[in-house]
């Protein structure tokens, strides 16, 4: 039996009369990169926000490592080893790069009132410094986050998410807005995280180049329902997927 | 950064040191030399309440100037240090402390705001400095009596509230009086006396306490109308008073209305604000001056003001209504200094003040202190006002409230 870190069962989300996601199932295998794709408005982000507990599903269950987290508040997810990034960058703009990542390490800085008031354990600071070094942000350590260029901001968001030391990393369109050469670097980074550190990654993405290159498995959503699932190869050749995307392109055209 | 910070803080330190210039050592009594005597004055000279203070200080100042011109007190010229207290407790205390500790005044003559003035009480008593207030009632600082604090030169609020009930009972033959007061310190004091007097005279009171910032006075008036009193006494400030009188007219209330001195600042403006002389058909005002503003008994005060402050007198609304209230306190100070002899001490002046009694000629009654009495002025007169004419009502109307130590 496969070892699933994340299972979503029968997820349905309704906004007023609109059904954004309808009886959707997905299971993410531990130690893999799993992509969630689909045309605009397919319900990817909604699903994603349900998993990270920012939205409350109408019905359905979310299991993390077999534990039901459907009613868990969003702020508890980090403590359970779930980290996420945001589609439209949500950095702590006025704070320094270092502080941004330190806040990522929030859940590792102790729980008691004493911990809350005392300086951070050295081990945590060390970890943050190492992350900065790894992501090449050390030089910008004391810069305000909002002053970084877009590429660095994306990188900082990733570093901040990694400071949680996640088991499951949820990435919302990590490649959006990046240039080709930057996407290639991201490709390398994500593969590295998965392979070397065993972090399970679920990403929502529009950039097929990235999805097809690194995903172990791809799930395709359209109009809130799953229309296909499989390896990148399988999905690419799935007729319903092609149809869905063609429709989209015709609308866009 | 460091450099600037350092500069700022040394700057601040120097400033503090500058503020703290050494006191004139040597003299036994502070603020006293062979040729001069220093008196500290404070009052609201700015902001919302400067109407209660600015010209009151000016009146006292011109009186002191006149004394100086006539040779001073025992050959000493009076020197004034004047501070703005903003009618606010914190600022009043800092003004008093500056006058006492930095300017080293001999005694204090200040305070136009009652609640704020009470804040300086303990400090003044601990420092043993004679303090003659200006026009503040400040009954909270006068009861229980202390050795150093003397006030209520315009009128004690305990006198205001009790007297108006006595007037209602005696002159207007009221069995039930509708009583509108403020929810502040003034109102609390005059209500206490009103209730005590009403109890002793067997008059029923229907009380409505309102905030000074009230915009709609319908509700309290409708309630009073339902209580059906024989007369209505208003002890509010000028603005709510005008609103109440106007609204009473609109609501068809025809019972006699008595307005206490708290709201009588400018009667001609009151007529304009009420909008109709008909509203004042059955209307009485309480006053504490010896005469109507500008009347023969106190004309000299207004003349002196015009002469001393021609620029101010040219402004609209000047002199401010409370201007003459500044004379009696200044007289009290001068008289106390005179009576304390050529070598006054703070203790001697305080002692003289405790037994002081004189007629200012400006206020309705004598300025009089006694063993348990630190309120200078407790007499009022009543006038019938029809919108243009004021007619004096004969008789004396007294508060029956007594301080129960």
């Amino acid at each position, binding site marked *: 039996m496969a070892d699933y870190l994340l299972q979503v069962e029968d997820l349905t989300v309704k906004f007023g009369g609109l059904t954004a996601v309808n009886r959707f199932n997905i299971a993410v295998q531990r130690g893999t990169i799993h992509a969630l794709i689909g045309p605009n408005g397919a319900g990817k982000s909604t699903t994603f926000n349900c998993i990270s507990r920012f939205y409350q599903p109408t019905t359905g269950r979310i299991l993390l490592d077999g534990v039901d987290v459907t009613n868990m508040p969003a702020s508890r997810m980090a403590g359970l080893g779930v980290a996420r990034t945001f589609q439209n960058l949500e950095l702590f703009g006025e704070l320094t790069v270092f502080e941004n990542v330190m806040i990522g390490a929030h859940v590792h800085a102790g729980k008691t009132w004493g911990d809350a008031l005392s300086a951070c354990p050295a081990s945590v600071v060390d970890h943050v410094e190492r992350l900065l070094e790894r992501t090449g942000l050390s030089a910008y350590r004391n810069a305000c986050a909002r002053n970084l260029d877009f590429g660095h901001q994306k990188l900082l968001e990733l570093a901040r998410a990694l400071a949680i030391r996640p088991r499951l990393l949820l990435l919302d369109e990590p490649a959006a807005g990046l240039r080709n050469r930057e996407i290639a670097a991201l490709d390398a980074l994500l593969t590295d995280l998965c392979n070397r550190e065993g972090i399970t990654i679920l990403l929502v993405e529009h950039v097929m180049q990235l999805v097809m290159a690194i995903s172990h498995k791809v799930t395709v959503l359209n109009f809130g329902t799953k229309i296909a699932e499989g390896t990148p190869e399988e999905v690419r050749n799935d007729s319903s997927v092609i149809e869905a995307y063609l429709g989209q392109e015709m609308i866009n055209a | 950064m460091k450099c600037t910070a350092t500069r700022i803080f040394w700057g601040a330190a120097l400033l503090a040191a500058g503020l703290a210039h050494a006191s004139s050592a040597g003299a036994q009594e502070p603020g006293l030399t062979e040729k001069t005597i220093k008196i500290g004055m404070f009052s609201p000279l700015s902001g919302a309440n400067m109407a209660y203070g600015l010209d009151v200080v000016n009146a006292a100042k011109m009186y002191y100037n006149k004394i100086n011109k006539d040779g001073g007190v025992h050959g000493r010229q009076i020197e004034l240090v004047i501070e703005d207290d903003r009618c606010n407790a914190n600022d009043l205390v800092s003004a008093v402390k500056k006058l006492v500790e930095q300017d080293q005044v001999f005694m204090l003559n200040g305070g136009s705001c009652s609640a704020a003035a009470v804040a300086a009480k303990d400090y003044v008593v601990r420092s043993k400095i004679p303090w003659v207030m200006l026009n503040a009632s400040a009954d909270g600082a006068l009861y229980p009596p202390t050795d150093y604090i003397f006030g209520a030169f315009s009128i004690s609020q305990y006198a205001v509230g009790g007297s108006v009930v006595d007037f209602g009972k005696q002159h207007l033959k009221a069995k039930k009086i509708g009583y509108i007061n403020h929810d502040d310190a003034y109102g609390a004091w005059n209500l206490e006396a009103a209730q005590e007097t009403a109890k002793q005279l067997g008059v029923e009171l229907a009380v409505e*306490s309102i905030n000074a910032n009230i915009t709609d006075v319908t509700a309290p008036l409708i309630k009073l109308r339902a209580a059906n009193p024989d007369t209505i006494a208003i002890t509010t400030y000028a*603005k709510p008073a005008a609103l109440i009188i106007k609204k009473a007219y*609109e609501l068809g209330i025809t019972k006699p209305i008595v307005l206490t001195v708290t709201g009588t600042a400018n009667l001609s403006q009151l007529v304009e604000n009420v*909008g109709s002389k008909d509203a004042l058909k059955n209307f009485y005002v309480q006053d504490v001056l010896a005469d109507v503003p500008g009347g023969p008994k106190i004309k000299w005060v207004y003349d002196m003001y015009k002469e001393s402050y021609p620029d101010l007198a040219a402004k*609209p609304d000047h002199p401010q209504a409370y201007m003459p209230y500044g004379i009696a306190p200044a007289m009290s100070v001068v008289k106390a200094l005179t009576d304390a002899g050529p070598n006054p001490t703070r203790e001697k002046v305080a002692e003289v003040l405790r037994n002081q009694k004189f007629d200012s000629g400006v206020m309705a009654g004598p300025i009089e202190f006694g063993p348990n009495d630190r309120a200078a002025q407790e007499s009022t007169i009543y006038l019938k006002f029809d919108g243009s004419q004021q007619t004096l009502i004969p008789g004396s109307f007294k508060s029956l409230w007594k301080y129960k130590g």
Partner: protein
Amino acid sequence: MTLEVAFLFLQQGVASGLIIGSVYALLALAIVVIFKTSEVPNFSQGEMVMAAAYIALYLLVFRSLPLWIVMPATILLAFAGAALFRRLILNQVARANGSPVNLVIATLGLSYVLRGFVRQTGFGDTPRSFPPVIEPESILIGQASVTTLDLVILATAIIVMAAFFWMFKYTKIGRAMRAVGMNPKAAQLVGVDLTRIHMIVWGLSGAISAVAALLISPKVLMTADMGSIVTLGFAAAIVGGFTSLPGAVVGGFLIGIIENLVGLFVASRAIVLAPFLAIMLVLVIRPQGLFGGRVEIKKV
């Protein structure tokens, strides 16, 4: 209290509430118009009313000009003054790029300046009034007594509200204002001149202040501190939802009625407390006010 008296109280409370409420409604409209487009709660709104009232007083009483000149002149001056403040002062504050609260502090500064200035003229101390726009005569509605002036104020509040409602909805400039309120950057991209819109909005708010001043000064009396009445305008705006024009008017009426009913049925000294209790109650039950749009859940 007998039932009869209670009924009388109720009638009078509602009638007086509607009338004083229309004063609050006018003030609330002036506040909301600015807040809708620039998200600045204008702390000097009350002083703008006060300043307009003193301009009118000066022209009417001390220059003895007739009312038909004084009214437009006051409104025009208030419009110009407010628009200039926006253009000369607030523009620079906004450009200086601090925290949004800086704009609020700047309006607070203006309120001090205006008050200090009126006091300097010597007028500010004695409560004053000028002849009302129409002679008030008492009329009975049911058992409730009101005056003709009250009815004019009430009608004006509703007309001003309707006019603004219409302007925001149907005129080009009104649509531009709404666009600026929703998304200033996008509005700029489609060619809206932000500076001009802000100036006009402030000018209009100044003009409403002047209308309010002309109507209510004889009713509530003028002092340099009469601006504090705007607290009740704020209360009305909050209860109504702070961005809604009808909300401002309904909020004004509600605050007025609550004040009167509390005064009649609870205690006169509780009148000043009533608006604040109303604010808290409304916000706890409906955090966005009665007519405020739904608080948006941030899309992530």
